[in-house]
């Protein structure tokens, strides 16, 4: 780019040099040699390319800046040529002033400057014309540009070509220019002030052009000037194009002046609309959305006063904003609505249950003559209303109503999104809380219970949700006795998890006091009666293992019957003892329902404790895993250590259900003596 401007200057110097040389040799002949014409053309081409790239490349699309550029380059050019004129006025009568050589040099300087101005303006005009371009326009412009280049070549070669052909060429270019001239879409994007400035700048361009042409014309008469610049089709066409465009632009801007306020308002509406729709990502609060809605609606319809009332905001506290009136005045307006003819419609308006509708009303006995009320809806429920007031009768036209409608709808969408985002965040927080709950609950189940030497033990528990209601635990009472519990809280999820932790508390406190199964269950029932929800109960089985006597004492509180494998008989059976769930009978009579059983165990015997999540697991045919399958599953693996028995049973269970995602909490505890 710098290179092109440097080359352009060199070309200008060369072109001037040859012209002057020619003049010295042939002081009487008019015209310039071919070589200088070539360099003139080269100069013009280079300047053209320089501006084409420097102006097109810049992303600046501020129309006023572009026009300012034109204005400044025109000013510089004018100052230079004025400087030359002043020089002539001072020295016109002296020998230097009369020197044809010097006058010719000045002419060349003028030509250089003016063509620079013309070309830069041409390129800026191009940018303006091609604002909002279509394919057709682009093609037409390319044609025009190529025609201009053609004209340049024509000038270069066609010095001797007769006038009519050059004239035809000029008219051809001029026609294209006129067609292109009517692309003035950019004018619409100027605001009122910018339009006035544009008119000023363009008017000055016209003045410059007129001045330059006068100047060059003046040279034309002097026969000692070598180059006849003005007759060149290229420059003439370019100048005419710039002139026509400038004149038309001035007219169009002038005619657009009265409507510019409308256009500005439309743009402002669009901006407000955007502000509403982008208010959520911008991290604004619901209140700010309401304020934006209120302010943009007010300015869009030139309302004299307005208010917005939101009854159900996200925080469930009412929000009200008033503009240009206070609370008392607003209630006065509401009073006068009641007295006016639209009373009935308005009642439904403020009634949340009925289908809300927008209303307009003419007010009596109020400073304001017209009111319009819009319901603000979120998820089809009215959360509030927007009221706009005007001091004139029939103040709102259909278009205004449409605009407000759009604003209100957009605000509703924004608020809806806003709430959804908040809900999502809230859910995320709950998930985190649940994760913590899960960790806490996991810690409630005993760890390291496999380390007991007197028997082998393995436990496995999975909750359907993050937390569950299954519980098992073991407590060493003394050197020879252990108590063991398995329990299942009715229901599942968080409420079950709370009761499960209560059960743990009861087990760890009561089992230390009494290891007798019946006493334990009666105490536990007493304790739970006071704190369980009405519809909740806990089933459990309590075991006391005496390793010295090899004795198992146990009671069942409504829990699934435990499965016992006898190693001598090589078969298993379910304990058939009576019992009642904890928390079902919440009085002293509970002890009537508790039964204690006792058996002696032998080495190799296995006891399987489980929750109903296992036996009630269903497959796709709605069949339950059931007691028989569990029994078979155990008997197949009775010789294996507990870990492998557990794995086998779980494998069988998953194979049966066809999934390892069961619908309930399930626990499996295996004790092998």
């Amino acid at each position, binding site marked *: 780019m710098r290179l092109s401007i440097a080359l352009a200057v060199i070309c200008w110097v060369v072109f001037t040099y040859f012209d002057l040389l020619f003049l010295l040799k042939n002081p009487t002949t008019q015209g310039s040699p071919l070589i200088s014409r070539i360099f003139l053309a080269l100069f013009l081409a280079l300047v053209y390319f320089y501006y084409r790239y420097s102006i097109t490349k810049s992303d600046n699309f501020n129309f006023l800046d572009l026009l300012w550029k034109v204005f400044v380059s025109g000013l510089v050019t004018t100052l230079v040529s004025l400087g030359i004129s002043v020089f002539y006025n001072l020295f016109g009568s002296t020998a230097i002033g009369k020197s044809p050589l010097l006058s010719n040099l000045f002419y060349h300087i003028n030509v250089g400057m003016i063509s620079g101005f013309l070309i830069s303006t041409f390129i800026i005009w191009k940018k303006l014309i091609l604002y909002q371009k279509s394919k057709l326009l682009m093609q037409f412009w390319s044609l025009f540009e190529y025609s201009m280049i053609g004209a340049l070549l024509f000038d270069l070669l066609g010095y001797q070509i007769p006038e009519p052909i050059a004239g035809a060429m000029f008219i051809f270019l001029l026609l294209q220019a006129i067609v292109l001239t009517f692309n003035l879409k950019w004018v619409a994007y100027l605001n009122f002030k910018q339009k006035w400035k544009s008119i000023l700048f363009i008017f000055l361009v016209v003045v410059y052009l007129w001045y330059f042409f006068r100047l060059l014309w003046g040279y034309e008469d002097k026969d000692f000037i070598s180059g006849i610049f003005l007759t060149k089709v290229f420059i003439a066409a370019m100048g005419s194009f710039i002139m026509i465009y400038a004149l038309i632009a001035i007219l169009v801007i002038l005619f657009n002046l009265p409507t510019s306020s409308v256009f500005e308002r439309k743009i402002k509406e669009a901006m407000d609309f955007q502000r509403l729709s982008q208010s959520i990502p911008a991290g604004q609060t619901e209140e700010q959305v309401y304020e934006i809605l209120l302010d943009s609606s007010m300015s869009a319809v030139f309302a004299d006063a307005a208010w917005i009332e939101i009854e159900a905001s996200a925080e469930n506290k009412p929000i009200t904003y008033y503009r240009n009136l206070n609370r008392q005045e607003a209630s006065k307006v509401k009073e006068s609505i009641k007295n006016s003819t639209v009373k009935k419609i308005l009642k439904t308006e403020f009634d949340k249950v009925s289908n809300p509708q927008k209303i307009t009303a003419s007010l009596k006995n109020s400073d304001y003559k017209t009111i319009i009320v819009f319901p603000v809806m979120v998820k089809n429920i009215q959360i509030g209303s927007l009221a706009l007031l005007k001091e004139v009768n029939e103040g709102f036209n259909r278009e205004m109503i449409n605009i407000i409608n759009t604003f209100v709808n957009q605000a509703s969408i924004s608020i809806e999104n806003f709430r959804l985002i908040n809900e999502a965040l809230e859910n995320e927080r709950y998930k985190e809380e649940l994760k913590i709950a899960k960790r806490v609950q996991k810690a409630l189940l005993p760890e390291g219970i496999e380390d007991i030497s007197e028997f082998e033990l393995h436990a496995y528990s999975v909750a359907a949700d993050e937390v569950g209601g299954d519980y098992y635990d073991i407590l060493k009472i003394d050197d020879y006795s252990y108590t063991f519990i398995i329990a299942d809280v009715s229901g599942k999820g968080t409420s079950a998890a709370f009761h499960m932790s209560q059960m743990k508390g009861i087990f760890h406190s009561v089992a230390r006091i009494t290891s007798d199964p019946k006493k334990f269950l009666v105490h536990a029932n007493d304790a739970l009666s006071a704190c369980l929800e009405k519809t909740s109960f806990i089933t459990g089985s309590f075991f006391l293992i005496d390793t010295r006597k090899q004795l198992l004492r146990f009671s069942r509180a409504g829990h699934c019957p435990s499965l016992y494998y006898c190693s001598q008989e090589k078969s298993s059976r379910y304990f058939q003892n009576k019992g*009642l769930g904890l928390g*079902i009978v919440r009085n002293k009579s509970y002890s009537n329902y508790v039964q204690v059983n006792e058996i002696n165990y032998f080495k190799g015997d296995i006891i399987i404790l489980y929750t109903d999540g296992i036996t009630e697991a269903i497959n796709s045919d709605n069949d339950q895993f059931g007691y028989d399958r569990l029994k078979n599953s155990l008997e197949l693996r009775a010789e294996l250590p507990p870990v492998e028995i557990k794995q086998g049973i779980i494998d069988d269970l998953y194979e049966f259900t066809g999934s390892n995602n069961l619908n309930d909490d399930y626990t499996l505890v295996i004790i092998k003596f």
Partner: protein
Amino acid sequence: MIEIKNTIEENVQHIRVIGDVDASSSIHLDNAMREAISKSTDIIVDLSELSYISSAGLGVFMSYLQELETNQQKFILCGLNEKVLEVFQILGLDQLLVIKENLAEARQQLDAPV
């Protein structure tokens, strides 16, 4: 899915429970029970079309035991299928509730002198 129908015959409410009673549908059962108890007549609950009952469903029956006794309303379950009956038995509810094989036996039980 659950469907609950309540008809009054000879001053006795017949509640038919059709479908599954799990944690979510137990709410409907609870509502039906509360309404039935408020009418202070004797109640027969026909469970012959009940295919599954979860612990939450059992909890509903359990929670009204005290109230039924206080109101001196007779409360009889009937028509339980094998699986459902087993669930009641394991929990021990069969010791607290009157459970009859079918509707006829349930009615007979009501007519029998106390």
